[in-house]
């Protein structure tokens, strides 16, 4: 049989439907306000330079014994975990009785050009962890690292495990040299010294361009053709625009930290090969003996599952749990499935270890 059976009348109907959506878009695009984000009330409990630690306020008092501190990546903004009312990891964790804090890295500028990974991990993260423990009145807290923030959290746990009760990593790259890791593949031919010496801080637009070129047609064309379908639906359009805002609301990257992250993680793969030093001390995943929950996304194009899975082979703990989520790098926070599956999985896993 012929693989294509497109009826001319149907093709015309498709065209007419697309045209009527465009007409509707005239109205809806003008009606939508500048989209906002952040569904949950929060208060700042610690500030240092551009870094702020927030504590989210739930409707009820938390019942968990130890708080969770979310450590997000330096790329993109952390409000992805609390995007909107019906898409919020934070809100769902609060509803389950967790006490949730978050590190907001802010937008680095020229003054942050010389921040190193030592400054971020042994400096900011350590002081944020101390601030959360003090605020919550506990000695140890739970750390939840996301993406690059997950890699930072692994380093932190290796160096300062005495401050942590449990560690959760989400969509976190561990083995950076798996064959399907396109980003890593590309960075290995780069002269990162020349790159940072020339650019200083790495511009957000350049980072975004790089991410878009991972899937150029899907992310740059098909997505916007898909937008035609929702041009007549104000709510869906607002959801789309909110996501669009998040994708392109990216901070510049502090030059020195970027240099070291590319060299040691992407090019050197030192998290698994060894030899990674943060400040004066060597990081070893074998040092981590506290319970670890590793959650990754099966359709992740930025951090392929093959990059996250090896954590279990390299980590020192005997209490290691792995959770594969059916979705992508973003879907793990915002999809309907994520709302149903991820917060309860975290809550249940923590509950078994802190009762």
């Amino acid at each position, binding site marked *: 049989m012929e693989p294509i*059976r497109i009826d001319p009348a149907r093709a015309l109907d498709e065209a007419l439907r697309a045209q009527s959506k465009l007409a509707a878009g005239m109205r809806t695009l003008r009606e939508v306000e500048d989209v906002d984000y952040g569904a949950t009330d929060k208060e700042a409990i610690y500030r240092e330079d551009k870094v702020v630690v927030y504590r989210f306020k739930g409707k009820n008092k938390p019942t968990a014994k130890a708080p969770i501190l979310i450590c997000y990546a330096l790329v993109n903004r952390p409000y992805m975990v609390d995007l909107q009312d019906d898409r919020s990891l934070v809100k769902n964790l609060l509803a389950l009785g967790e006490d949730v804090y978050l590190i907001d890295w802010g937008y680095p500028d020229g003054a942050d050009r*010389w921040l190193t990974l030592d400054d971020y991990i042994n400096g900011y993260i350590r002081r944020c962890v101390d601030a959360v423990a003090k605020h919550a009145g506990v000695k140890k807290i739970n750390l939840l690292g996301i993406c690059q923030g997950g890699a930072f959290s692994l380093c932190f746990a290796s160096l300062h495990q005495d401050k942590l009760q449990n560690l959760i990593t989400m969509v976190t790259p561990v083995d950076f040299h798996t064959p399907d890791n396109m980003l890593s593949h590309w960075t290995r031919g780069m002269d990162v010294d020349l790159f940072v010496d*020339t650019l200083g801080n790495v511009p957000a637009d350049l980072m975004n*361009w790089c991410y878009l070129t991972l899937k150029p047609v899907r992310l*740059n064309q098909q997505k*916007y053709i898909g937008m035609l379908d929702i041009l007549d639906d104000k709510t869906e359009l607002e959801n789309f625009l909110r996501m669009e805002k998040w994708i392109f609301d990216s901070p510049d990257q502090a030059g020195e930290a970027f240099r070291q992250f590319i060299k040691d993680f992407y090019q050197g793969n030192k998290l698994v090969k060894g030899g990674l030093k943060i400040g004066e001390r060597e990081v070893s995943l074998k040092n981590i003996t506290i319970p670890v929950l590793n959650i990754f996304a099966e359709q992740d194009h930025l951090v392929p599952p093959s990059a996250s899975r090896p954590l279990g082979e390299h980590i020192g703990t005997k209490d290691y749990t792995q959770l594969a989520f059916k979705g992508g790098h973003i879907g793990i926070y915002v999809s309907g499935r994520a709302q149903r599956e991820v917060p309860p999985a975290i809550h249940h896993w923590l509950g078994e270890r802190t009762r």
Partner: protein
Amino acid sequence: MADTARAFEDWQALSRRYWDAWNDATRNAFATSTQTAQADALPWHEGLEQWSRMFSQAGSQSEIVERLLTGAKSYFALLQSMAAKSANGSDAFDAKAWTDTLRESFNFPGADASLFDNPLARALREVAGKGAKSIEELSKGAEPWMREAQTLLGLPAFGYLREHQEHYQKFAQAMLDQQQQTNRYNALLARASGRAFELLEDKLAARAEPGRQIDSVRALYDLWVDAAEDAYAEIALSDEFREVYGALVNAQMRVRKHVQEEVERVATDLGMPTRTEIDSMGKRLHEVRRELKQRDEVTAELAALRAEIEKLKGASGKAKASAKRATKTRKG
């Protein structure tokens, strides 16, 4: 407001003309060549342009309209090509003819001729990031420098302006190298585009089974996107791409560095601070702040230790006093 309303009416009228013509052409399976020619002559892409112009003052929404427009152009071109193909098609299925139609639909009127038959390169060009564009803008801005430098490239540098001459020579070499690396990169994208159509033919062959046939233009477009991404991934994950990509990025950085050096030279001549000087001060300041933080922490640690010692001293003093009292009581 009145302008917007009028623009909307104009756009609707233009759209109506276009779709009426297509309605006639596609609903009539025996469409005459004149009817199809009339439909082809109508500027569908002009309708989209007109639509987008109505959002030119829409602030934050205008960029997203631009992106939507860019995608919609390809899709509408595909709709038009496919509708014509369906209306005029013969009974026998010809995968190559369909993929050719698909390929041509990406070469729509107004598209950059250098990107014809290379939709992947176009998709990359359409990534509207300042970081990506700035390199091209930089190259354009540096063209006068380039022309000057090229004339000096073959000459040995000597004399009072030797250093400047050598700088221009290196700059020109960097520009040439960037162009070469860009060409190598574009060649790989062209290869990926060609491969995308081969993969599409394979994917179409797999759709010949009953129940899996493509029955809409959108489904065909989505299948093409799958093929394009698969082809791109094949190339992008190759060792050759890694080498070319790295070489391109490094070449771009070398050009940028030369521009920065030139700007700094002019700034120095004008008595203005340079980026290198500011960086140097920033680095020193950062080191001082880091030392201060470490001292603050050591001071806090010392204070905590002192407090602990005082507490221990207090506890030990109390213990001694109570022991003394106990001895006295026993003696008494």
